[in-house]
C-alpha cells in the first residue's frame, strides 16, 4: 500500500491525448469531482443525523436492512445509515488535514533538498530513505498507539509517516525546474531565493504537487480507516467509517450489512479522490506538453 501511494498510481496514460482535450478534466474525473462535492454536502448536513446515530435501542439490535433502517442496525440497535452519514465529516476532515500535514512536511523537506542540493540534499535524502525503509503501518501503529488517543494523534501519525513520498516528489519537481533558463534569468536579474521559489518555481511545480496532494487525501482516509478498524484510531464515541467497521468481524455470521455499507462509503470516497487525482494529472500533463 505504501509503495503504491508513494509513487502514486502509475497510470501515466501515454498517448491518450486523442480522446481528452488538454487542460480539461476527463469525464471520469468530473464525475469523481461531483462525488467529492456530494460527500462534502453530506458532511455539511450530517449534524442533523448525529442524534439518530447515537440513539441506542437494544430492542432493535442487528436488524437487517428494511424501509425503517435502509442500512440495517448495528450491535447496539443504532441506525447504520445515520451512523455512516454522521461519520462522513470525521473521515473527510481527518483525511484532508492528515494529507495536508504530510504534503506540508514533504514539500518543505523535498523543496529544500532539491533547491540547495549538495550536503543539504544528501542529508535530507538519507532521512527520506530511512523513513521509507519502515513498513508504514509499523510506524503508524506505534505512533497511534503510544500517543494519547485523539483526532490530532491520528492526523499527526498519518502526516509524519507518509511525507517521504511527497518529499521525493517535490524534490524531483524542483530539480527539474531549478536550472531552467527562466529561473537562471530571474537569478541573474537579482531575484531573491524566496521570490524565485514562489514566483517562478511554484507555478510550474504546483499542478503535479496538487495531483500528489489529491492522491494523499485518498491514502490518508484509507490509513485513518485502517487505524480505527484496528482499534488504535479515534477514541470512542467518535466513529469514522473504519471505526464502525471495527465491530463487523464479530458479527460476520449474523450481520453482513455492518461490513457492507460503511465499507462502501469508504471505497466510494477513496476511489473518488484517486480518480480525481488521476484526472488532474492527465489534464495538467497534457497542458504542459502543449506549451
Amino acid at each position: 500500500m505504501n509503495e503504491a501511494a508513494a509513487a502514486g498510481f502509475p497510470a501515466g496514460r501515454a498517448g491518450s491525448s486523442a480522446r481528452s482535450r488538454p487542460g480539461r478534466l476527463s469525464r471520469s474525473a468530473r464525475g469523481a469531482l461531483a462525488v467529492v462535492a456530494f460527500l462534502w454536502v453530506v458532511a455539511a448536513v450530517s449534524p442533523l443525523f448525529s442524534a439518530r446515530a447515537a440513539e441506542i435501542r437494544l430492542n432493535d439490535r442487528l436488524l437487517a436492512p428494511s424501509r425503517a433502517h435502509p442500512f440495517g442496525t448495528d450491535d447496539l440497535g443504532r441506525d447504520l445509515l445515520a451512523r455512516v452519514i454522521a461519520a462522513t465529516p470525521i473521515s473527510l476532515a481527518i483525511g484532508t488535514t492528515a494529507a495536508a500535514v504530510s504534503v506540508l512536511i514533504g514539500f518543505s523537506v523535498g523543496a529544500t533538498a532539491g533547491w540547495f542540493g549538495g550536503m543539504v540534499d544528501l542529508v535530507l535524502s538519507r532521512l527520506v530513505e530511512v523513513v521509507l525503509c519502515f513498513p508504514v503501518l509499523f510506524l503508524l501503529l506505534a505512533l497511534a498507539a503510544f500517543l494519547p488517543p485523539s483526532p490530532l494523534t491520528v492526523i499527526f501519525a498519518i502526516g509524519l509517516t507518509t511525507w517521504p513520498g511527497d518529499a521525493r516528489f517535490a524534490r524531483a519537481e524542483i530539480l527539474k525546474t531549478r536550472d531552467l533558463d527562466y529561473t537562471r534569468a530571474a537569478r541573474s536579474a537579482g531575484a531573491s531565493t524566496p521570490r524565485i521559489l514562489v514566483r517562478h518555481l511554484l507555478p510550474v511545480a504546483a499542478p503535479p504537487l496538487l495531483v500528489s496532494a489529491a492522491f494523499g487525501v485518498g491514502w490518508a482516509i484509507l490509513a485513518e480507516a485502517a487505524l480505527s478498524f484496528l482499534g488504535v484510531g479515534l477514541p470512542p464515541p467518535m466513529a469514522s467509517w473504519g471505526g464502525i467497521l471495527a465491530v463487523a468481524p464479530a458479527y460476520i455470521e449474523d450481520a453482513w450489512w455492518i461490513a457492507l455499507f460503511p465499507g462502501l462509503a469508504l471505497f466510494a470516497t477513496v476511489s473518488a479522490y484517486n480518480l480525481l487525482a488521476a484526472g488532474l494529472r492527465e489534464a495538467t500533463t497534457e497542458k504542459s506538453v502543449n506549451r
Partner: protein
Amino acid sequence: MTRYIARRLAFAVPTLAGIVVLVFALLHLAPGSPVSALGEGSGRRVSQQAAHEMQRLYGLDRPLPERFARWISRVARLDFGESFVDHRPVLARIGEALPYTLVLNGLALLLTLAIAVPLGVAAGGRPEGSLDRASSAILFALYSLPAFWAALLLQTLFSVKLRWLPLYGVASDLPEGGAAGFLDRASHLVLPVLCLTYGSLAFFARLIRSSVAETRNADYVLAARARGLSRRQALWKHAFRNALIPLVTLLGLVLPGLLSGSVIIERIFAWPGLGRLYFDSILSRDYPVILALSLLGAVSTLVLTLVADIASAVADPRVRDGSIS
C-alpha cells in the same frame, strides 16, 4: 562497477544509522511505558513498589543515552532480549512467526507476478486497446479498495454464505494427515493470499504496462519485428526484458508494503505471522519485540534495496554511470 557498488554501500551506512536511531527514539521518547501499560486501563493494579521493581529489572530507570548504548551493543550481537509478555527470547518468537508470513507473502507475490506480468505485457502491447482500458479500470478500482473491507466481504461471501472456505486460522481444529490435511491448510490460505495479492497487483501491472507501452515502438523492438519476429516474440523478448529493470529495482521497496499489509490481513484471518506479532506487541507494549521487528523490517528493506540497485547496475550500464536512476 566497483566504484558504483562502493558509492552505493557508503550511502547505506548513514541510512542504517538513521534507522537504528529512529527505532530507538520512536519507542523511548513516546509517553507511556510497559509498566504504565500494566496499570490503568489494563484492569490490573500494580503497586508503586512493583512498578519500580519492574523498571529496574528492565533497565527502564537508566538514563536514555545509557539505555541506547546498551541496546546497540546487544543488537550488534543479534541479542534482542526477552519478550516482556512471555519471557521467551525475542528471536525465538520472531522465528516462530516468520515462516507463516513468508508462506503468505511469498504465495501472494508469486500470484501477483503471475497475473501482473502477462496482463501488463498484453495491455502495454496495445495501449488504449479494449484489454488495456478494461484492465486499467478494474486495477484502478482494486487500488482504491481497502484490504480489510475486501477481506470482510470475501469472508461473508465464501465462508459464511457459501461455506466453501474457512473463516480464519491456519488449519482446522482436528489435524488431518496426508492429502486431506494439505487441502485443509491450502483452503485456509486462499482468502488471505487473495487479499494480499490484489493490492500490489495494480502497482505491478501498471508499472509493466507503462514500460512495455513506452518501449514497444523503440528502434530495437521494431528492428526485431523487421527481422521477422512475431509481435508476441518482439514484445516478450525485447520490450518486456527492458521493463524488467525498473521491476527489479522496485522489488526491494515492496517488502515494507507487504509487511504493512500483513498487519491487517493477519489480524483479520488470525494468522500467526509477523504482522500479528507486531500488532499484539504494540497493544501489550512489548518493547523488545517491537524494537526487534521494526529494526529487522527496516534493515532487510535496506539490504534488499541495495541488492536490487546493484543488480540493476550490473544489468544496465546506464544506471552505473548515472544517466538514469
